[in-house]
């Protein structure tokens, strides 16, 4: 008995929808096994992790707060991944965006009027885009591997933030704590829906919907999809791979930078040595779980946001290490990528003996 993968003639639409669901189910099953191994009741563990955060208003609001940056970054990464540009550095682009956005309220605290916030968001997007363009330019100019360069720049960005918060941008009235000054009201993202969420959530949803339309309906979206699947056919269509690399990195960086600025302006209200619990990395999982489709990414963002809240939940209620959240996120990415195989292949059980030497004909 052995398992064979048989290539389908076309992509399976059913499997394209089912594969993320199968991945989530397999992740839940693995999580249950993990809970059992560590001596906890798996059912209670799963409930605390995946369900309980949805039952209370405060945890639901916290989930939305966590989901917002994940969705925004994930949307930008989807543009990169669809066009075959492997941007792994969204975490750094998020941080540099936050730095650019914070420059205004920190360096010019007295500049308080209606355009303060729009300017901050604009700067944030520009900062993220500039940071993302570094690996893009290195790739188009010198053929470097963007996976490595974008990832390495994450740590550069982190150290830059750390230096600024402990050094020049430290709050002069902050008793030497490594924090920037608290942003003024004009530099703070307002809350909407009676304080249930920050303005960042509706902004994110609108951006995701616009991006979904661009990807599905426009020539630019077509170009992105063609380049991702078949660069040679893309150049036959007259599209430029280099220009698209710059474009997709700039979009992903801008959205990550915007998310960074909205995070410091809305949720944190100041710069801290650490402003992200790994949003930029988790968003990679969000992008793939959402099938690189902005609407799917909205849903996937919520699922991954749950893992943050749920991780805290099981830690406080059951004494399981908070690291369980990272483990479950990793499992989820693993299963999502594995299940994607089913879209173009189907599984067949074969009971006959294994022939050898299919590969070599030398």
């Amino acid at each position, binding site marked *: 008995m052995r398992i064979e993968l048989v290539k389908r*003639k*076309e*992509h399976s639409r059913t499997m394209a929808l089912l594969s993320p669901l199968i991945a989530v189910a397999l992740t839940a099953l693995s999580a249950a096994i993990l809970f059992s191994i560590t001596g906890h009741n798996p059912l209670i563990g799963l409930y605390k992790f995946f369900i309980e955060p949805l039952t209370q208003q405060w945890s639901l609001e916290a989930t939305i707060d966590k989901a917002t940056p994940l969705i925004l970054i994930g949307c930008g990464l989807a543009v990169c991944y669809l066009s075959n540009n492997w941007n792994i550095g969204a975490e750094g682009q998020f941080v540099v965006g936050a730095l650019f956005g914070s420059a205004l309220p920190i360096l010019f605290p007295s500049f308080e009027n209606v355009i303060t916030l729009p300017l901050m968001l604009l700067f944030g997007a520009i900062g993220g885009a500039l940071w993302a363009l570094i690996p893009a330019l290195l790739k188009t100019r010198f053929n470097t591997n963007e996976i490595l360069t974008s990832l390495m720049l994450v740590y550069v960005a982190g150290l830059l933030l750390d230096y600024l918060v402990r050094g020049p941008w430290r709050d002069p009235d902050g008793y030497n704590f490594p924090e920037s000054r608290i942003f003024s009201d004009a530099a703070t993202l307002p809350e909407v829906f009676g304080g249930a969420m920050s303005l960042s959530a509706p902004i994110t949803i609108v951006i995701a919907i616009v991006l979904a339309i661009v990807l599905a309906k*426009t020539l630019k*979206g077509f170009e992105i999809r063609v380049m991702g*699947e078949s660069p040679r*056919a893309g150049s*036959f269509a007259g599209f430029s791979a280099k220009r698209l690399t710059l474009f997709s990195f700039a979009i992903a960086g801008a959205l990550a930078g915007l998310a960074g600025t909205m995070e410091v302006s809305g949720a944190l209200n100041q710069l801290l040595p650490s402003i992200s619990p790994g949003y930029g990395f988790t968003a990679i999982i969000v992008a793939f779980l959402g099938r690189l489709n902005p609407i799917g990414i909205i849903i996937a963002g919520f699922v991954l946001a749950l893992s943050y809240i749920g991780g805290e939940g099981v830690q406080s209620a059951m004494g399981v290490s908070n690291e369980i959240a990272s483990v479950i996120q990793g499992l989820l990415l693993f299963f999502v990528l594995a299940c994607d195989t089913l879209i173009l292949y189907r599984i067949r059980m074969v009971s006959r003996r294994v022939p050898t*030497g299919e590969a070599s004909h030398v």
Partner: protein
Amino acid sequence: MGDSVAETTLPEVDEHPVQQDRSEKDTLLDARGLTKRFGDILANDRVDLIINKGEIHALLGENGAGKSTLVKMFYGSLEPDDGEILWGDRRVTIGNPAAARELGIGMVFQHFSLFEALNVVENIALALPNPGNMQDLAKRIETVSRDYGLPLDPEDIVADLPVGIRQRIEIVRCLLQEPRLIIMDEPTSVLTPQEADQLFLTLQRLAKEGCAVLYISHRLEEVKRICHHATILRHGQVVRECDPTLETPASLASMMVGADVAAVSAGEQAPEIGETRLALQGLSAKAATPFATALNNISLELRAGEVVAIAGVAGNGQGELFDAISGEMPAAASMIHLDGTACGNKNINWRRKQNAAFVPEERLGHGAVPGMKLSQNIVLTRHGTGDKLVGAGFVSNVEASVLEKRIKQAFDVRMSHDDPEARSLSGGNLQKFVVGRELDRNPGILVVNQPTWGVDAGAAALIRQALIDLARSGSAVLVISQDLDEIFEIADRIAVISRGFLSEAEPATDMTRERVGLLMAGGAETQGEVA
């Protein structure tokens, strides 16, 4: 390639092999009821095949008829689902290629498996179970290769060798193992006519020595010329066996297709030559990679109303020339003129807007995106050509499917359901689609690379006729092809490309296969250098 040209006194190829009653000869391989299934497709359906000792046995069939599947089972790279193979009078299970070689079955593949950075003797040593001392092996290679009329220098680096010589390496590699059956998959598709003649002599000598050859080819002329017996496959079944010497290429073709193949008519209507539509002037380009070919001072004028064909053995710069003409590879502006406008530095969509159209060699991955629907693949080449496919940046799926239906009907593209992904079409149907996509625009200039490569006879005839019709309606058509039969069928003028040099285009009526062969083997090069 030079050495095969130098040998002017080739012995005559024995045109009419002596016929013997097959049953009286010794049976070497007897396959009974071989069946192989891939999913829903029955690739081989109860195939019976007998190969005698000393026989050159042709295996004929259209693409997808099951030829490759059958020989892969003989060579041990596929396992039959049902049926048995008798070797001599012993029942054998051929589990892998090593087992096949042990029995004495060798195979020469269409696509070579050589390491370009290594030399001849190293490549051969890698394939032998116990190569022994390298110097002894080099001597054996020299002796065997000279003996069989396929001389090789064991110290040559493969990357420097032309395709014809590379094939010799593969053949000599087989011969060193003293095979009793050699399987050859389309061996002449990479050879000049002269090199092919040389190969036929070797095969005939092998056959005289009692070695059997299973010969797969689409070139029915040569099958008629050298094969003793032919088995014809259609849809995985043996439909006929015959003596090819008693058949004509046309009758062999209709056995393969199962119907009469419409003859393409080019010469009947003399072209009305108009003004120059495409001009190449001193087109040169450096090789982009170590394995690419540089283009050397190529000049050509393509005029309205005519079909010009560029012949040449694979890998002599055809792909690079196509990319330069299409605009995927930039050149200096003055090197390429479309309707009198210098445009060597303009991109492919600019050229399409000048009413030029292009069909590349590779259907999947270059001419079409495998995972996209046909209607989306129409947008691929026609988004900039004013077909109302794009408005205000948005792609109109409605307009795209209108075009898809029109092309499907006009070019008889067969599919299991409407608007499938490109990858699910068979080679012939996808080729009809990618050619039809451009012809549907009624382009003034059409450049097509290998228009019927790997396409079945029916689809090939349809495509060739469409190319001629386009030219006769006043467009200029440039065909790059390795298929000499095709070239002589459709071309008004013929040029030959060799190592990135292009010979002057001469009227097809003045050209002979011998002359084309000489140009392929380097004549184009010297001509190009003089020019």
